[in-house]
């Protein structure tokens, strides 16, 4: 069988990305009677449990740049980020009318409060605020989280009308482990040979996992990896940077492209972070819920939405990632009005400065149109990095 070219894979990803009516997810649901779809917002939910219930986990990352927000603005003041308003817009315009449940993870007070709005606006939809512990001791936060996971499981069983057995959950854990490994492979390829896997492509490939069943997504990643490895693309004289602060509201694709066009290879990022939240495989034997809890407590990524219990380690994860990826600088790119990302930034910036890692910052909205200032800022940053490294 002939392998697809990267452009074929990317074309499919682009279609999925641009389709704010979620045709692929609708088609999945319609393929068999009784199928259910559970939406989730950033940043992390244990998709394994949704999958084990025979349901599709649908990532709802806002409406992006393609949706015109008409109703959503009547729900939010101007000083609140865009993702909740475009998400409301998606729902009001019936683009989420096939979604049977919505999960609102504990990331910030905006998404937290959106869970309550959803309960009021869409009373027929199973709506859950998905709380996670900020205490990482197994006997304290772990016990609490296991209870949360069990409550979530019970709620999802009610939606799907079937019991979620441990074996099904173990199978789902295995599938998501595989998917995560593949996602990590894409990131590793890009870090090694960024000219082979441009950031905008990587973004689209990972983003496709928001609307596809996990196995289909894993296959898509395999196809992309094979095509990207095979394709001959010339390296450029770009510097290597890492993107930080984009874990919730997503930037327009153009912004990602602009950064690369400005001379920066993105060698790591926190886009669509839920797909890489867990850093290791979750064990497939033993108690699956306890395993998911253990992974969350002890093997999960750093993020502004998470408390760092050890003050001396604040920013370490970022510094280590910079080192591991061989990045030469960091671009803090956060959504406007994003409290978690913007409050974290000075602390992370300090950790970087201590290690002499240069950084710049800017803000965006998912529908930012003007790329010129960002391109100029990123271009100047790239030039200065090259100057430093030449010095």
């Amino acid at each position, binding site marked *: 069988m002939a392998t697809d070219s990267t452009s074929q894979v990317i074309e499919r990803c682009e279609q999925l990305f641009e389709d704010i009516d979620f045709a692929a997810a609708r088609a999945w649901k319609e393929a068999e009677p009784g199928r259910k779809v559970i939406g989730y917002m950033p940043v992390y939910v244990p998709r394994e449990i949704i999958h084990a219930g025979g349901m599709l986990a649908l990532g709802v990352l806002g409406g992006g740049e393609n949706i015109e927000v008409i109703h959503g603005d*009547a*729900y*939010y*003041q101007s*000083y*609140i980020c865009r993702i*909740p308003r475009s998400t409301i817009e998606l729902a009001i315009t019936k683009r989420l009318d096939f979604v049977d449940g919505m999960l*609102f993870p*504990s*990331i*910030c*007070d*905006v998404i*937290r*409060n*959106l*869970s*309550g*709005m959803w*309960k*009021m*606006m869409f009373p027929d939809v199973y709506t*859950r*605020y*998905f*709380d996670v*512990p*900020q*205490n990482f*001791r197994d*006997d*304290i*936060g772990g*016990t*609490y989280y296991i*209870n*949360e996971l069990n*409550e979530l499981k019970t709620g999802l069983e009610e939606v799907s009308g079937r019991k979620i057995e441990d074996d099904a959950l173990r199978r789902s854990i295995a599938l998501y482990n595989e998917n995560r490994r593949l996602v990590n492979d894409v990131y590793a390829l890009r870090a090694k040979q960024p000219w082979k896997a441009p950031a905008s492509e990587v973004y689209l490939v990972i983003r496709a996992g928001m609307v596809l069943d996990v196995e289909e997504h894993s296959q898509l990643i395999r196809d992309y990896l094979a095509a990207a490895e095979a394709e001959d693309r010339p390296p450029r004289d770009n510097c290597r940077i890492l993107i930080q602060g984009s874990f919730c509201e997503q930037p327009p694709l153009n912004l990602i492209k602009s950064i690369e066009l400005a001379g920066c290879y993105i060698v790591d990022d926190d886009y669509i972070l839920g797909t890489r939240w867990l850093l290791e495989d979750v064990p497939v034997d033993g108690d699956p819920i306890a395993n998911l809890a253990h992974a969350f407590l002890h093997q999960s990524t750093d993020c*502004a*939405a998470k*408390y*760092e*219990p050890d*003050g001396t380690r*604040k920013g370490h994860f970022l510094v280590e990632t910079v080192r591991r990826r061989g990045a030469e600088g960091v671009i803090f790119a956060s959504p*406007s*009005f*994003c*409290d*978690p990302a*913007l*409050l*974290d*930034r*000075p*602390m992370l*910036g*300090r950790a970087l400065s201590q290690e002499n890692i240069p950084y710049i910052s800017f*803000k965006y909205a998912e529908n930012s149109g003007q790329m010129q200032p960002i391109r100029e800022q990123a271009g100047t940053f790239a030039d200065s990095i090259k100057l430093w490294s030449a010095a």
Partner: protein
Amino acid sequence: MTDTTSAEETVKEPSMITQKHMIAANYDRLTSAPESGTKVVSTYVPGNLNELIMCFDMVSNLPEINAINNAMRKKSGGYITEAEKQGHSEDVCTYVKADIGLMSKGAIAPNGKPIPPPDLLLLSYTGCFTFMKWFELLRDEFGCETVMLHIPYEGDGIVTEHMRDYVVKQLKDEVIPALERVSGVKFDIDRLREYLRKSAAAEDDLVWVLQSAKNKPSPIDAFFGGVFYIGPAFTAFRGTDEAIEYYVQLRAEVEDRLARGAGPITPEGEMGPEKYRLVVEGTPNWTSFREFWKMFYDEGAVVVASTYTKVGGMYDFGFRHDPDRPLESLADYCLGCYTNRNLVQRVEILENYLEEYEADGLLINSIKSCNSFSAGQLLMMREVETRTGKPAAFIETDLVDPRYFSASNVRNRMESYFQMIEQKRRGGGSATVAA
């Protein structure tokens, strides 16, 4: 009996003067901690564990109270600019920036002496995500011991057994050991019970005062006056005899006004005839507090119930600290604070206030800083309007950032809102006055 202090010509009730002394004494205790050897704990107002802290002879420093104090003394604007100069985003909560700015300017307390650095940061993370980041920022600054108490959110509008257990376990295994370690004092649960018993006594009187606003005319303003009435119960005095005495005094004052059919005391004296009864959702603006209040009392508008006065506990819905369930009741207290309630509950609370207090309508003061309060308020407003048929209005200001208080905008909106209430009284329909 009221007192007019010369400087600002502000009329003060005796209980306000009592409170002023209490706060001043606490600042003195705080600023003299280095000499007295008292250990300092920084902690937040919502979900604060004052009774527990007292068990360890520690003194509390409450950063929000510092920010409010500085805002009322017109100093917060400078502090915020200072923090922004240091790289803090213009988009984030101004309480945080006012605090950071204050620290970099030497952390001077209202008594003119420096606030000592904390020995312990006790992060009771209740009802606001920003708290968590704020404490990480403070820890970055002070490098002192930090202990976190994570309070799960009432996403489904209920407190489950496992939520309560999680909080109690953190209290037992994280918070109390940290307090023991830093203070060198061993925890005595009977001491805690005694403080909790005192808290409950004060809370009974606080609720009586807040609910006196059900009378017509209301003898209190439950927002502008309310923020003073909640002071001792929400801060470093809950669990003390002083707090009990303060509330006895306050209650007597209110009883007296009630008996006389008098309205609330405003900074300019007793309010004239009550024309409008409002429920207010949201946080006050502290930089133009008096100016804002004047827009109400000049028009005969009194706030009969507010949600801000519930951020440090929803006592009026029955909660009391309970000496028989010491740690469990501290957990329930933290879990039940207003901003830890989901939006469905918040709408129900507002609806209840509008009906129970026979209010004319709802006013939302939406605060730029505060996503915890503000995100979703427009929907809440429409929902409350639909359920009660009473008119609502929406204004936007900020807490401690003077740049976000536009007196003329607020005044215009208030004027149209009062007209709307009049119209409604004459039998007209309701239309929302929005931003």
